[in-house]
């Protein structure tokens, strides 16, 4: 009943759908739904005033049937059988007709293909899919699909027995058997026989393999015992691939002997080339950094050195292996040997190219290995070789390892660098940088970033130690620069921290005591390094601007009590001048301080009160020549030295003033700035007592500073384009959607629109899903009732 109604419905809807535009449907009041409008808007055409719910519903159902229902039916099914025989699903054709049609089709196909020119026979007869004609020819070509020959036999039989094969195969088999046994074996027996055979084969293969292994090992050992006697690299031909190793093994022994005989002549010639080859060969294992070294800018000389070094190193390696003549080395060396040893162990473990490698190494050694060879083969003068060997050992001892662990803490770095000369420290750092280059491993970047901070700390330590080791600091500069260029951010952070710490401590001392001592040498060095690393001419820079402030603070707030303080102050002045030399920026504190220093040279205190002197107490630190006494009485050598020191300080001070005058001569208030200095130099400085160069300097400065300030144009504002008057034309805004929220910005409107759209789409999707489930449920009911009725 129900089924009937649905089918009826379907029929109707089909009809409706097919004749969608049919006017009678649109006219049919039962099909039409009129969408009532509240208001009539003039000039607006409405599309949806009349709807056809029946039509649209049927259309939707149809669509679901085509898509959803098909998917639903195929759900949880991976595949299905499709009978492609002709007319299988066609119910219109009768079975007889079907068979007839199929036969003709078959005939046509065979006809069309290969038997086009076959005149005598209509068709080929087959049995089990194989052509009978073929079989009668009795060609027993057994195609074996396996690659290995020992398997091939097996598989032929296997295929024969397992798959039965055609009659021909069986027949052939039985024919073969007839000669020996004359009675057919049962299938069971055949299988057993097969199993036994295969097992036997397996065992044979096993023993063969073991034998080969044993042979290899034996050969290895023998090889090892003689390889040290070789001073010559095995010819390339011998270094063959792993695949045909057994063959190599068999021929290796005579070859090596031959090599050892001819080794003596060859070694000198081959040494250099092999060095290169060698590096290529085991570059992965130990030579990564070596290659880097060679890649450095040091050029040809360096490479030769490397060759020697390698020789030395190799010797140590071999000493290790031989177990006999290993010498005690210092810690660094030991460390290196540990690494090397580890690598050797690796080599032995990975027993693939072990033999080759060993031969390489053995032949690699030049001088030292020659000595070993000497003992056995008795070639060459023993004393010379002995000496060479010693020298190489010495070199090896002094030689630095190639790899360094990146220091994790400051003490690590200190331990690493201490007790080395400055050149070696550079080398150590260079190598550390090379082995921890960020491109080599993931964690290296962080390690090196930390290293920069440690290095600065180390430099500070070098500067504070007594006596300060500034040469090393200077030598380390390229490394510091390199690091800084690699990690500007980390470098910036590190320098900033040091500056801020020092500035903070100075501020604290100032607050507690009111005065602070001059910064120590480490800070001065740091400031200098800052000037080297970062551009001081930038208008604003995260490092140099604080450094400026630090210098300013030191020059204004630090008290000068001794000649040492004067010296530090002059260094600060030099730094300040360097900082501003390119940008020619004005540094008032610098001039104040220089003025203050010049005041120290004056013995009469008349002028002091009138001019600014906050922190430089009016003492006579730099007074060299006093008017009251004719000449300072030089009582001792120390006194003389002291006087010389004072003179040199005065000289530097005046020179700095001179540099300042040339630096600032373009400033509008140049004369006003330098007036106090001019007054002092002109009226109070005891020039007469100074040596001639200082007097010259003095007069030069006085020439540079004009007596009268030069004329300047009064200040005026910058000329500006006049701002146009405001115009009162109305601003026109296009209103796109009436009645909607206005006044929003474009983005907000767009956002609103999208939100609205999303909401509608979401609702629509929900509705569709609901309809889908309803449709599927209906189909389920229909299907179940259909099957139950069947």
């Amino acid at each position, binding site marked *: 009943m129900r089924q009937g109604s649905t089918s009826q419905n379907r029929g109707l809807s089909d009809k409706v759908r097919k004749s969608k535009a049919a006017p009678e449907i649109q006219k049919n009041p039962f099909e039409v739904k009129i969408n009532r409008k509240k208001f009539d808007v003039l000039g607006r055409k409405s599309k949806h005033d009349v709807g056809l719910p029946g039509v649209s519903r049927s259309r939707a159902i149809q669509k679901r049937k085509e898509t959803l229902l098909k998917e639903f039916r195929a759900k949880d099914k991976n595949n299905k059988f499709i009978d492609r025989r002709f007319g299988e699903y066609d119910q219109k054709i009768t079975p007889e007709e079907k068979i007839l049609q199929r036969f003709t089709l078959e005939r046509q196909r065979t006809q069309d293909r290969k038997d086009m020119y076959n005149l005598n026979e209509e068709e080929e007869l087959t049995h089990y899919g194989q052509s009978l004609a073929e079989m009668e020819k009795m060609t027993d070509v057994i195609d074996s699909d396996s690659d290995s020959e020992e398997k091939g036999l097996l598989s032929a039989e296997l295929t024969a027995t397992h798959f039965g094969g055609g009659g021909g195969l069986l027949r052939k088999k039985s024919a073969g058997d007839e000669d020996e046994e004359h009675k057919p074996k049962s299938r069971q027996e055949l299988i057993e026989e097969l199993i036994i055979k295969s097992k036997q084969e397996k065992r044979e293969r096993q023993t063969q393999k073991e034998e080969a292994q044993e042979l290899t090992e034996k050969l290895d050992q023998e090889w090892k015992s003689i390889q040290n006697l070789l001073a010559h690299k095995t010819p390339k031909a011998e270094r063959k691939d792993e695949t045909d190793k057994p063959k190599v093994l068999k021929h290796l022994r005579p070859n090596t002997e031959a090599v050892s005989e001819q080794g003596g002549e060859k070694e000198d010639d081959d040494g250099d080339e092999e060095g290169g080859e060698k590096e290529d060969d085991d570059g992965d294992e130990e030579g990564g950094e070596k290659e880097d070294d060679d890649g450095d800018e040091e050029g040809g000389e360096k490479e030769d050195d490397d060759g020697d070094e390698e020789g030395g190193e190799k010797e140590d390696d071999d000493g290790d292996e031989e177990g006999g003549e290993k010498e005690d080395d210092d810690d660094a060396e030991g460390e290196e040997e540990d690494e090397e040893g580890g690598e050797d162990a690796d080599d032995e473990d990975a027993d693939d190219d072990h033999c080759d490698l060993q031969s390489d190494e053995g032949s690699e050694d030049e001088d030292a290995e020659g000595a070993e060879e000497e003992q056995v083969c008795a070639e060459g003068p023993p004393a010379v070789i002995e000496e060479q060997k010693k020298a190489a050992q010495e070199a090896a001892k002094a030689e630095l390892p190639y790899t360094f662990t990146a220091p994790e803490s400051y003490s690590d770095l200190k331990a690493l660098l201490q007790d080395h000369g400055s050149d070696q420290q550079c080398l150590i750092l260079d190598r550390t940088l090379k082995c921890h280059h960020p491109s080599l491993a993931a964690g290296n970047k962080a390690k090196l970033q930390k290293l920069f901070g440690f290095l600065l700390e180390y430099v500070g330590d070098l500067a504070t130690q007594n006596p300060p080791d500034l040469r090393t600091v200077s030598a380390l500069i390229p490394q510091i620069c390199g690091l800084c260029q690699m990690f500007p951010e980390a470098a910036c952070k590190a320098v900033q921290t040091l500056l801020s710490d020092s500035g903070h401590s100075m501020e604290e001392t100032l607050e507690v005591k009111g005065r602070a001592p001059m910064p120590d040498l480490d800070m001065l060095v740091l400031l200098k390094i800052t000037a080297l690393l970062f551009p001081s001419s930038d208008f604003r820079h995260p490092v140099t601007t604080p450094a400026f402030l630090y210098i300013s603070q030191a020059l204004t707030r630090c008290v000068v009590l001794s000649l040492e303080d004067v010296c530090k102050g002059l260094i600060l002045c030099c730094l300040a001048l360097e900082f501003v030399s390119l940008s020619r920026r004005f540094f*008032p504190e610098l*001039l104040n301080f220089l003025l203050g220093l010049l005041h120290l040279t004056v013995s009469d205190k008349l002028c002091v009160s009138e001019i600014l002197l906050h922190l430089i107490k009016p003492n006579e630190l730099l007074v060299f020549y006093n008017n009251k006494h004719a000449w300072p009485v030089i009582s001792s050598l120390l006194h003389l030295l002291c006087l010389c020191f004072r003179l040199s300080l005065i000289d530097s001070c005046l020179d700095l003033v001179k540099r300042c005058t040339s630096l600032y001569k373009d400033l509008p208030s140049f004369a006003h700035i330098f007036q106090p200095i001019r007054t002092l130099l002109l009226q109070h400085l005891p020039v007469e007592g100074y040596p001639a160069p200082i007097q010259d300097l003095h007069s030069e400065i006085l020439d540079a500073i004009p007596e009268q300030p030069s004329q300047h144009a009064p200040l005026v504002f910058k000329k500006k384009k006049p701002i146009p008057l405001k115009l009162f034309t109305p601003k026109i805004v296009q209103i796109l959607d009436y009645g909607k929220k206005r006044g929003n910005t474009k983005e907000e409107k767009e956002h609103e629109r999208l939100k609205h759209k999303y909401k509608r789409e979401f609702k629509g999707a929900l509705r569709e899903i609901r309809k889908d489930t309803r449709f599927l449920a209906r189909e389920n009911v229909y299907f179940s009732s259909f099957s139950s009725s069947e």
Partner: protein
Amino acid sequence: MNTATHFSETIMAPSTDSNVKGENSQVSYKKDINTKTDRVLQNKKHANDIFDVTEYLQSEKDKEVIFATNACSKIFCQLFYRGDLYTWDTPISDKLQCVIYVHYFHIFQETSLCALMKFVAAEGKHPLQNLDLSEHYNFPRELLRTLVEHLLSENEDMSLLISRFQEFLEMDDVRYYVMSSVRDNIYRVMGRNKKAVIPVYQNNVFALLSTINVPSSEASKMKNFLVKQECKFEHKRAFEQMWLVFLKFKLPSNMYKKILVILHESIMPQMSDPTLLIDFLSAAYDIGGAISLLSLNGLFILIHKHNLDYPDFYKKLYSLLDPSIFHVKYRARFFHLVNIFLSSTHLPAYLVAAFVKRFARLSLTAPPTSLLILLPFICNLIRRHPSCRVLIHRPSTPCDDPYVMKEEDPAQSHALESSLWEIKTLQKHYHPDVAKAAMKINDPLTEQEDDISELLELSTFELMERELKAERKTIPLEFDTATELLKSSREVLGVHFSLE
């Protein structure tokens, strides 16, 4: 000394002979004092033991002295309460005060001070003589006077003890009598010294005076008495007189600074007539330097609130401006005040221009922290006084700077005819903020004044921190890579110094 035998001796004959007490061990003197104290308190007969106890006060052992002091205070307080004491036993109090004198250790002075104050309290409650009732109060003024005398020592620094004494000054009557006795004391001592400077004494006085705080509303909260009394004190008057007497005499210069720092906050508001300070302040203003700067504050209050007319105030202020103002500790306070003084728009243009020009000239030697105050300040002044705009905008031909720096009188300085080339110079200053602030004079100034109040306390390190904390995306590096410490393209250091 063999302690074991000595110990047995003391047990055998406890405290019979007071003359050997100096040799007593720890236990014995405690016992001795205790028994004697008990005996004195039990019976009047043993009153002479008091002398034995007081002997201990002069002992050389610290613990004995402390113990004896406590014992004395116990005895006498008891006696006071009982009313057994009729005449004040002056030698004893003298001895206690001796303790204050003799012992340098703070702790003795403290205990004896407390003991003495207990006596003061006890005596106040139980007066020795029956005074006539017509007098409203009875307070042991004499005792307190001697105490103050010792506190204001001429030879020693008593600041620790004075800070201890501060807690007694919480009490209104004590404070009042202390104030009056201090006044008398100053008169006496300074008169004796013929008005010369006595730094230690004056330090002590200052320490004591600065701890005295008169409560603001006088009558309402006078409830905190050492001795119960029903009377009113003219605290403010006493306070005022005390200070005026102190300030009347010549003071060391650091004392001036100390006083001037607290003057406007803790002295002037508590005086009934602050105008009386004018002599002191004008004298201080004339001294010059930092003292003058500090006295500005007091003067300002007098001018502002008390209608004081100070002739040539601005002239003097003008002469105060010298390079040292940027380096003194009181820079922030000074600029704050100068800002206030020059805030009036009724000042003549020549005056403001002179100030502006002078500030500009001084800025050539100033550190960046001061410049960051100074430049907005100058801009503010020009904004307030549009007639000074010629200083930064005068289209005319080049000329010499007509400004006369050495002229004391702002009217004669020709500042209005000058121009601020100094600010132009500062546009090349090394600090970016300073340079930016100086750039502002290139354009017509905006109407809005810059707020300088938060810049006043700026220190160099804060400036540095500002720079350090700023987030930067990229850090530019020096273009030339360095190879050696003293080898760069613009080497100055290497010319004068070399690596050892």
